[in-house]
């Protein structure tokens, strides 16, 4: 009797297992399509992406996705050469400025027809997230991860604040409080900075991030006029330069301090208690959990707060910036060079990443970071997985989209050069911004003139 019961149980288990494995063992009846997936989900995310691909292939047995994780160095060049080649990858992970650039050049296709044909419900995305993926009225990709949370968060070391006499549960909320903490904590010698309060950054991206916390703006809503050299802009850059020179001993100290360091590898001053406040994007949660899990769960040691604003400006408030630079507003775009069946397969995968429960939703949850799909972020388990989930949601609400164009790469480079000139004392903050504005606006006007002529 016992034997027969055991036998029956074994049969039942096997049937259940076979039911569970059924999708995984599904066979392709037609022709198999190989989809090279060019992406930058390196470090611990590669295994997570492999899992996502496994789920997708189980549901789509005729599509084989090859996970091609790329190195971060020279990312833009790798992407450009791959996209422009006669045999590009099947699907490409690109940032918003690149998506616009490729769209303008005809290298990628709009996906509106696929969205309609497949009945994809794009209303599941936050409007601000999906909105960033439109160029000239056409949709070019589905977002994942969020474009938001690139700029508004900072991570801080509670022990360092506590030791310096500050309340670790009330970290700096304004520029002025940030200065106070940084002055108290920064230790420098002839060789540079030994212990750092915080680094404000010294390139164009950093300037734009701080600009929005002083109620400034980068460009007009239609993207045709640049506005960053406003009095708020000049005040912001002056503050950044003075802070860096007076507290950190100059911009060279900052380059040296962070030289050869890598947060995602755990080789970073943050893990040695030598930097108190670090402005990071939401990917840092996953990296921290991956490289230092003990520290991740020790919330007495570190905390998260929203980027400080100018306390002297009554109109300023906590504000994040989305879709401005090359580290945000990722989407999965489909090259024009491929035959329709491969493009259709690429869309199926893009849709899976974007809206499927086992796609971006699970993938981002595993990294403790938010999703561009509203429903995914309502998962109550986020509060257990991410000790600062409340702050994440609060920061996400501060994000403001920036209007850009396909020439954003060139504009950002000019702005960075001018901001550097201010940091190195070659020009005053005002002159640097005005010169950059003149050069950038001329380039932008030229772009719009050509664009308008082509679209008459």
């Amino acid at each position: 009797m016992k034997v027969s019961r055991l036998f029956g149980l074994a049969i039942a288990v096997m049937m259940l297992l076979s039911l569970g494995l059924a999708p995984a063992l599904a066979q392709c009846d037609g022709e198999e399509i190989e989809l090279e997936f060019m992406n930058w989900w390196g470090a611990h995310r590669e295994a997570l992406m492999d899992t996502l691909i496994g789920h997708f292939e189980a549901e789509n047995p005729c599509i084989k996705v090859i996970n091609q994780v790329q190195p971060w160095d020279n990312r833009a060049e790798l992407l450009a050469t791959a996209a422009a080649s006669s045999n590009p990858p099947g699907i490409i992970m690109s940032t918003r400025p690149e998506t616009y650039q490729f769209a303008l050049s005809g290298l990628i296709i709009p996906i509106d027809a696929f969205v309609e044909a497949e009945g994809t419900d794009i209303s599941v995305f936050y409007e601000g997230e999906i909105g960033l993926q439109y160029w000239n009225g056409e949709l070019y990709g589905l977002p994942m991860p969020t474009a938001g949370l690139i700029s508004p968060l900072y991570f801080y070391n509670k022990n360092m604040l506590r030791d310096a006499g500050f309340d670790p549960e009330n970290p700096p909320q304004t520029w002025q409080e940030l200065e106070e903490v940084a002055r108290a904590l920064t230790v420098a010698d002839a060789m540079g900075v030994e212990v750092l309060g915080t680094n404000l950054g010294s390139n164009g991206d950093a300037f734009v991030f701080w600009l929005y916390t002083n109620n400034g703006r980068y460009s007009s809503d239609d993207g045709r006029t640049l506005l960053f050299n406003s009095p708020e802009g000049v005040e912001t850059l002056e503050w950044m330069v003075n802070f860096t020179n007076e507290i950190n001993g100059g911009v060279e100290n900052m380059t040296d301090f962070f030289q050869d360091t890598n947060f995602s590898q755990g080789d970073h001053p943050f893990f040695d208690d030598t930097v108190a406040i670090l402005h990071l994007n939401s990917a840092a949660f996953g990296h921290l959990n991956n490289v230092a899990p003990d520290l991740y769960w020790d919330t007495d040691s570190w905390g998260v707060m929203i980027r400080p604003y100018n306390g002297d400006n009554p109109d300023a408030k906590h504000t994040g910036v989305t879709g401005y630079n090359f580290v945000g507003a990722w989407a999965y775009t489909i090259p024009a060079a491929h035959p329709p069946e491969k493009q259709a397969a690429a869309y199926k995968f893009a849709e899976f990443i974007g809206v499927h429960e086992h796609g971006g939703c699970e993938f981002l949850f595993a990294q403790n970071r938010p999703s561009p799909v509203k429903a995914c972020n309502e998962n109550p388990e986020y509060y257990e997985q991410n000790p600062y989930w409340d702050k994440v949601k609060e920061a996400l609400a501060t994000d403001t989209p920036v209007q850009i164009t396909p020439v954003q790469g060139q504009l950002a480079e000019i702005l960075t050069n001018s901001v550097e000139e201010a940091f190195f004392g070659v020009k005053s903050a005002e002159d640097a911004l005005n010169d950059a504005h003149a050069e950038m606006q001329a380039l932008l006007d030229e772009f719009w003139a050509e664009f308008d002529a082509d679209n008459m």
Partner: protein
Amino acid sequence: MQASLKSKHVQHDATRKVRLQEWWFRNRALIGYAFIFPWFAGFIIFDAMPFIYNLYLSFTDYQIGTVSTPPWIGLDNYTEIFTEDKLFGKSMYNTLYYLGYSVPLRLIFAFFIALILNLRVRGMELYRTLFYVPTVVPLVAATVIFAGFLNTRYGFLNQFLVLIGAAPVRWLSSPDAIKPSLILLSLWGFGAQMIIFLAGLQSIPDDLYEAAAIDGGTGWHRLFYITVPLMTPTIFFNLLMGLIGGFQVFEQVFILIGTHGGPLQAGLVYMLHVYNKAFRDFEFGYAAALSVILFLIIFVLTILLVYTSNRWVFYGDAQDDET
């Protein structure tokens, strides 16, 4: 009878050999062409055709994604380079600065080491190998190692400077130190020039040094009146190669300071500017025009150098024979 047959056979062989020689002589040009064909084909496919295509592209507005014939814009790219492109002047200045120091320094350094390695001491083969080892280290690896050496706080160079009481240098973060850092890095690959110098030194006949010694010449006399004059063809060759290579410096700068060119773009060399225009801004036609300008500069400089070499390069008695 047998001797007669053998003689006929030998005669027949000799006739065949003569005929083969005659055929060879008559068709010597054809045979010569057959031998150089692989190189020539490679030159046409991999050098001449891309060069001509690049020249054509430089007169077009070829951008990424241009699928049909790129629009012909004549000299617009060249006009923009000379009238509007601020980074053209900056990158050219940076490159000339780099060349002005790195080429002579590397020549002097390689020549000096070659002189030492030409001495007759025990174990010289080992020393020669050791000095050549850096040259076989891949450039990427060498540059990464150098980046560690140049680290302001932990790098070997600054640790050494502090040890001797000097102020540390911000090798990679200060606009003033970027170019010297690149020049320092350029010395790393001196081995190839050193080997050529060493070969040149070993071809100088000993009797010239012996004659100088009998006439009471000192070591300096031997160096400046025998070695250096007889080495001028080798110096000329290394100088020419150094200049051509120096104008095209790219990989080490790209790895060490990235495409931006370091703080204030103090390390933005010419090829980095070409690269940025092509692969960051996707203006391939413009980048092609920049490449053509670089080619012309190198071409003119090479012609000038070859032309002036008659005045300072010593090729033995060839000129005397002609006169």
